[in-house]
């Protein structure tokens, strides 16, 4: 089975700080990691390969440094990494990102399944997976928590919903996005790390993948950020003092005044 996994480099969120004067992120380039949701996508790809044979190719669009993160994927079992990197990709929104990835994946050519994380933790949009499927003209299923069966041209999987889950069957090739519940990513093996160290990550430009310049990067992005600001947070916290009994009593009194209906 030919498996493609799409990943994104994101800032290590624990380090995200906001400059209150400029309302911008204080980001140190060095503190970038693979999007946590994508680690489940990589792991699931590697597990599928181990179960069915085949190859796992990891692809990302980003700055040259992202090659390091693609190598980390090789260390945990992926076979190869491909980086789409070109100034022409810069400024892409989710639509333009899906166009670039689709062009890159078309150049790879053969694939049975494409796996993405549910969303990236910097933008939190979750839009690239379904957009990519549309660009490739194949179906998609989001938020998969378990693959029940997969074989040539067929997948049956559990999709998390707002109410529980549903079992969906779908023809392959398809794009799936996965949630955290699907697996527990492995740590790199010594052998994997050796392989990653030696790996060469091909870098493909917009011309290499024959991307339509009107569909990628800033030019291909219908949406535009016009303002960023720090959200206001409630600072009028009322601290309730006293003995534990007093604290509990006072709190409940205050909450009961809100007259929220309690189902009987």
């Amino acid at each position, binding site marked *: 089975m030919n498996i493609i996994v799409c990943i994104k480099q994101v800032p290590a969120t624990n380090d995200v700080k906001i400059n209150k004067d400029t309302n*911008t992120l204080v980001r140190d380039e060095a503190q970038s990691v693979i999007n946590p949701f994508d680690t489940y996508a990589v792991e699931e790809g590697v597990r599928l390969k181990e179960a069915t044979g085949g190859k796992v190719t990891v692809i990302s669009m980003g700055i040259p440094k992202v090659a390091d993160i693609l190598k980390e994927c090789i260390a945990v079992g992926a076979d190869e990494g491909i980086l789409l990197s070109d100034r022409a990709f810069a400024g892409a929104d989710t639509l333009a990102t899906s166009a670039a990835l689709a062009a890159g994946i078309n150049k790879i050519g053969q694939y049975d399944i494409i796996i993405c994380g549910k969303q990236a933790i910097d933008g939190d949009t979750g839009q690239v997976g379904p957009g990519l499927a549309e660009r490739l003209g194949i179906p998609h299923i989001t938020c998969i928590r378990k693959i029940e069966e997969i074989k040539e041209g067929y997948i049956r999987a559990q999709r998390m919903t707002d109410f529980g889950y549903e079992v969906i069957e779908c023809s392959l090739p398809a794009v799936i996005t996965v949630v955290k*519940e699907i697996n527990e990513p492995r740590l790199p093996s010594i052998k994997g790390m050796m392989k990653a160290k030696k790996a060469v990550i091909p870098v493909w430009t917009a011309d290499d993948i024959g991307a339509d310049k009107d569909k990628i990067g800033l030019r291909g992005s219908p949406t535009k*950020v016009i303002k960023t600001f720090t959200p206001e947070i409630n600072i009028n916290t009322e601290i*309730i003092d006293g003995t*534990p009994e007093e604290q509990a009593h006072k*709190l409940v009194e205050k909450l009961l005044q809100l007259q929220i209906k309690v189902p009987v």
Partner: protein
Amino acid sequence: MAIRIIEENCTGCAVCVRACPFSAIKMENDKAVILDNCTLCGSCADACKFDAIDFQAERGTGMGDLSSYRDVWVFAEQKDGVIDSAAFELLGVGRHLADQLGQDLAAILIGNKVRPLAQQLIAYGADKVYWLDHADLERFNDELYADNLSHLIERYRPNIVLLAATVYGRSLGPRVAARIGTGLTADCTGLEIEADTRNLMQTRPAFGGNLMATIICPDHRPQMATVRPRVMKPLEPDSERSGRILRQQAQLKQDLKTRVLQVVEEAGEIVNLLEADIIVSGGRGLGDPKNFALIEELAQTLGGAVGASRAAVDAGWIPYSHQVGQTGKTVGPKVYFACGISGAVQHLAGMSSSDIIVAINKDPDAPIFKVATYGIVGDVLEILPLITKEFKKALGK
């Protein structure tokens, strides 16, 4: 490259370095240098006082004349013949936008035997309901719903299309937007019409709620957005309101690539986190998985749902379906109890829009107190049972 530093103008003041949201500018020999990770947002060019940044936003040409796109549309998600409450919230904000634009508000209703729901959508503010009915459309199916919604958009050319940022909405929205070739803003918490341009200003949290961004889609139509549930307010329903119900021909196909075989509702055992008015959440401060019983008891007393922090889920104390936060569920109940939760930004991102937040934590410096309405500094294991007891007494349970 569409951006460059004009070195002779650059004074090395580094204002641009601070203005860059992406740390994509550095100073080298007292001159600014644009790095590879520049996203061409243009913030630096706006900030530079010396015209030292040549920035040409090479934007695409867009769709040309946009004036023929009219009306505000709301995708009215329904399940088993019941409209999702988020659809009423969309109609609430949609009504406001439509009135500002002087255009109609339309609801898109797709399902099987769902005609009676159309009247409800009108009561909640819709002027028109585009109604599609067929046995094959009974349940949400990405493929069929995307075909039908795209078809309607192409035919009627709406100005704005709103979907709820539910699992379904966040799957359907990007598929349809990619097919139409227009922009989509995810998980918006604010929507306004810009007075001059009449563009839709879409505000959403990014970076786990650390930063808010306002986004427009100036040259493409429709302007599409998914909207975070439980942020917008529905109108009071008015059963006297009148509106038109317009039946549409459903687009169907025999060779569907995706089929839903089974729907499993897990909400029976726990009240759905997304719908609950009261959520009691526990974190690592509970010390031991068995102490989740205290959380459950309070939740049960109040008819609420049980939530958890990522730390508690990662420790294996409670299933992932209970996780609240950036990598779990985003909730907005009337009252949220954070018990033994320190309040990492990722957790705050998932619950800070709750009306009332009660924080109980032994560490007075825990970040959770920064967003709390009421804070109790103390031992959660001691205080929680006392609160439950007080409620039971007050509620006569």
